[in-house]
């Protein structure tokens, strides 16, 4: 038994070619889920194997890689994946969104606008937006093929009938290029508008479910809704207590045993860049209009 010598970025070239073919097909049919022969990766299924395989297949020695999980470069799984590529591909890594050529993400789209020079790779747990309405793969594939998406709106109808508005907070379904309904991965719906007309190529990899799909640059991406109940992006109605940003998606952090909490940017790079430019908290008063005790508070939808 000798230690195996791994290829550049772990996957063998034959596998990379297979995945690149799937990616090309995905780009050619925006939003369509292309089946691919997902490999067993040295990290568990559900922990980003799809994203890792896509990244491994498109990465070149000159690329600069950024990996985020929940918007942060320093969460354990992001660290683990970044280390994996440092080890197997020896590529340059960065935490700065603007420096990266390939960004692998779980659950967030960076706040800093992306450019044509960049590729955003999403990790996807369940690629099928119809899955929880129709568990059968044979049936959902037929529904996609025939554009039978009435059921998707039935779900939204039920939300409104029950709650008064659409009660989907993340993994909010979109229609790509006026054709395929697609799951944008479990990003908060706050990020949905960033998918539309985005200059960067967006690739989605689901390893366990063996699917790859894509949104080519500058593609129309519409969040499903009703005319009289239009899609609304949601964020906590507060400013970041570190950098004062009032346009970023916020994490709520519990600061002590009494349940006091504060809001900070979920995108750590965005927050750091702003602070480097001299931005800080707006004032000493709690940014949360509801005060620190939050029971029953009702954040409002921003315009």
């Amino acid at each position, binding site marked *: 038994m000798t230690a195996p010598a791994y290829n550049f970025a772990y996957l063998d070239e034959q596998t990379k070619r297979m995945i690149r073919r799937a990616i090309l097909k995905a780009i050619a049919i925006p939003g369509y889920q292309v089946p691919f022969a997902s490999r067993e990766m040295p990290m568990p299924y559900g922990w980003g194997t799809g994203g890792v395989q896509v990244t491994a297949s498109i990465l070149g020695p000159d690329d600069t890689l950024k990996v985020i999980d929940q918007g942060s470069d320093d969460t354990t799984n992001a660290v683990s994946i970044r280390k994996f590529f440092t080890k197997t591909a020896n590529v340059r890594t960065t935490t700065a969104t603007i420096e990266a050529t390939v960004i692998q993400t779980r659950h967030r789209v960076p706040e800093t606008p992306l450019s044509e020079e960049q590729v955003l790779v999403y990790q996807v747990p369940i690629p099928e937006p119809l899955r929880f309405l129709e568990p059968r793969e044979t049936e959902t594939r037929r529904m996609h*093929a*025939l*554009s*039978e*998406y*009435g*059921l998707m*709106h*039935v779900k939204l*109808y*039920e939300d*409104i*009938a*029950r709650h008064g508005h659409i009660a989907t907070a993340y993994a909010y379904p979109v229609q790509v290029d006026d054709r395929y309904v697609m799951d944008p991965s479990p990003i908060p719906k706050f990020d949905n508008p960033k998918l539309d007309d985005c200059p960067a190529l967006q690739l989605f990899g689901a390893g366990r479910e063996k699917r790859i799909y894509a949104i080519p640059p500058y593609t129309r991406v519409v969040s499903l*809704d*009703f*005319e*009289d*109940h239009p899609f609304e992006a949601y964020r906590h109605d507060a400013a970041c207590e570190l950098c004062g940003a009032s346009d970023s998606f916020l994490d709520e952090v519990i600061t002590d045993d009494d349940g006091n909490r504060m809001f900070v940017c979920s995108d750590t790079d965005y927050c750091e860049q702003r602070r480097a430019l001299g931005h800080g908290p707006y004032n000493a008063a709690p940014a949360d209009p509801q005060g620190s005790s939050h029971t029953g508070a009702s954040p409002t939808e921003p315009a």
Partner: protein
Amino acid sequence: MTTPDTDTPLLIAKGLTKYYGRQLGCRDASFELYEGEVMAVVGESGSGKSTLLQLLSTQIEPSSGSVTYRMRDGSLADLWRMSEPARRFLLRTDWGYVHQDPQLGLRMGVSAGGNVGERLMAVGARNYQDIRATATDWLGRVEIPHDRIDDTPRSYSGGMRQRLQIARNLVTAPRLIFMDEPTGGLDVSVQARLLDLLRRIVAEMRIAAIVVTHDLAVARLLSNRIMVMKGGEVIEAGLTDQVLDDPHQPYTQLLVSSILPA
């Protein structure tokens, strides 16, 4: 909606035959159905009437024979030469299918409003208030109280479920509806109310219907024409009143006499 064309048949079945392996399901069924006409198919279980309904509604492919349908634009289409998308589109817009068991025809976990609205949303309705208003109107037409619109059919009685299934099917104003024992499994008093409702709506909307039933009373009440099936073949056909009042075939006579005491 197009103006009714009373000269050309809406549906033409020619020599419809279906074998399951070596077993005969239905042989050489041919007939024409005109707009607004209600045809009953009667017979015992195993007579082939359900097979015929499945053949007509393209749920199973015939071993031989054809079904031709006059589309809304007036063109005639051979249903088995149509593409699957076109056929499925027809099924959810211009056709309806009422199952004997409403659980098969409804989404039991979805509210009544969602059940009725689904077909509208499937063809592109995107205004919540409009969809809801249409659903409310339809619930009224099938005599379901408006305040039950957000309840799921799980909380409905058998009769209400069946009426909801009818509303769900009729909301896109189909020209043809298939019904498989629509009153089966319901209490007699509930049956009477449902039949009354069906007769009224079908007449008002001028919908053509093919109703499969083993109950000659249902056939007499709903249909203009009747086909009697036995052993996979149509043995007698004609105007409902004529066939039931003056049956020619001994089998039909037996069927008619067996229900007379009821």
